[in-house]
């Protein structure tokens, strides 16, 4: 159990160290792909967010903007 935790902590620290490596502008090829965007399809995202908003109590986190509806 202790050994498992040590490995996990080391892993998390390594992840943060990796995070400190800067991606250079010329290395951005993969990150620029549309399938690597957080919202590759803004139109689809709007439809989806509205559907979940009208069926569930939770909402938000993705952005701010937009008006309300009588659907909830």
């Amino acid at each position, binding site marked *: 159990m202790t050994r498992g935790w040590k490995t996990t902590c080391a892993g998390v620290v390594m*992840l943060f160290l*990796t*995070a400190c*490596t*800067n*991606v*250079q*502008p*010329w*290395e*951005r*090829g*993969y*990150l*620029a*792909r*549309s*399938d*690597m*965007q*957080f*919202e*590759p*399809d*803004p*139109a*689809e*995202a*709007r*439809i989806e*967010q*509205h*559907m*979940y*908003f009208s*069926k*569930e*109590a*939770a*909402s*938000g*986190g*993705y*952005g*701010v*903007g*937009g*008006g*309300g*509806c*009588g*659907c*909830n």
Partner: protein
Amino acid sequence: MRLQLIPSAPILLKGVAGIALVGVVGGVLLPTTDGTAAPPASPQAAVKYSRYWESRDRVDVLSPLVWFLAPVGEKYSVELSGTVDSLSGATPQIDGISSATMSEHRKAADIKITRYFNEFDLAISGATSSEHDYHSTAFGADSRWYFNQKNTILGLGFNYSSDRITSTNDSEFREDAESRDFLIGITQELSTTDIIQSNLTYGHDSGYLSDPYKFALVSRQITQDLVIPTISDDTRPDERDRFAWLTRYNHHFPGLKASSHLDYRFFWDDWGVAAHTIDLEWYQQVGDNWMVRPAVRYYSQDQADFYVTDSSEMLDDYNSADYRLANFGALTLGLKIGRRINDYFSVDLKGEYYVQDNGLHLGGNGNSDDPVEAATMMLGLNINF
């Protein structure tokens, strides 16, 4: 409660001639040379035709949506979208008796104008939504601040919404509500193939937050020995504080020509609701022209404090039997397929199955009396001018 949040536009990079087909095949874009943000190189548009069916009430919603994004000069962009929902169906409900008439239209539109500076960008937005018994107007501002050659982005946002609620059952009924939403978020590039974003949003709703068409069957103590059934209006508090913390992580697998999206959101509010959402999507490029994207989403929520589980519950200050405030879990399974036609056009087709079930509730305490089961199909045309 009333506010629906529009997702923020994707981060757009400079010098993207030959831009990847919007939302379809993940073609490689030309990398930036200076790591600053700028408007998209060319206008993009999408037309989506979405159909939604619910099994329990035979609700059927048809929603065409149009979306448009374009640069305006070197330093501005404008984003617009508009939709019309046509809803038909019946809603007989057992516990939370509803008397809503069911054939309505909702029209909604939004606009965002972004100004790009060297180290940050700033946007203002407006939105409107109207149905015959609900009108909403919203405006907001958001910005992104760039650090570490755009490896790190700080996002800030604010939105205000004002709603007017009426009722087809009562021509004298007229209430107002407002919402204020705030966002703070960090986006961090972790490597050439990894990016993570974490956003915290806070919202405050005030005014009439109940549903004028809903009722709850509860019990009322008349004397020490006499308890009678009674019907209560759906009465919710006139204030609500809500929080959502979303963390999402994208990873690209160059060898597989695929990318994974993994999102987790924790939601909580002062009505007693707490909810977990986990979303996993896999974008698989197939050849040069196809994209296949399976997706799975799991959701679980805990009920509002004033949710009425059954009619033996006592009448309280706040009562609601609306299933959306119950304990339940939900699962979505989806598949989207995209096909690039040429440099200008691509099409996509998505099918999704959504089911709420008391058995999916995380604590095992599901008590919704009206779980939703639905299917969606979406057909889209994406244009890159």
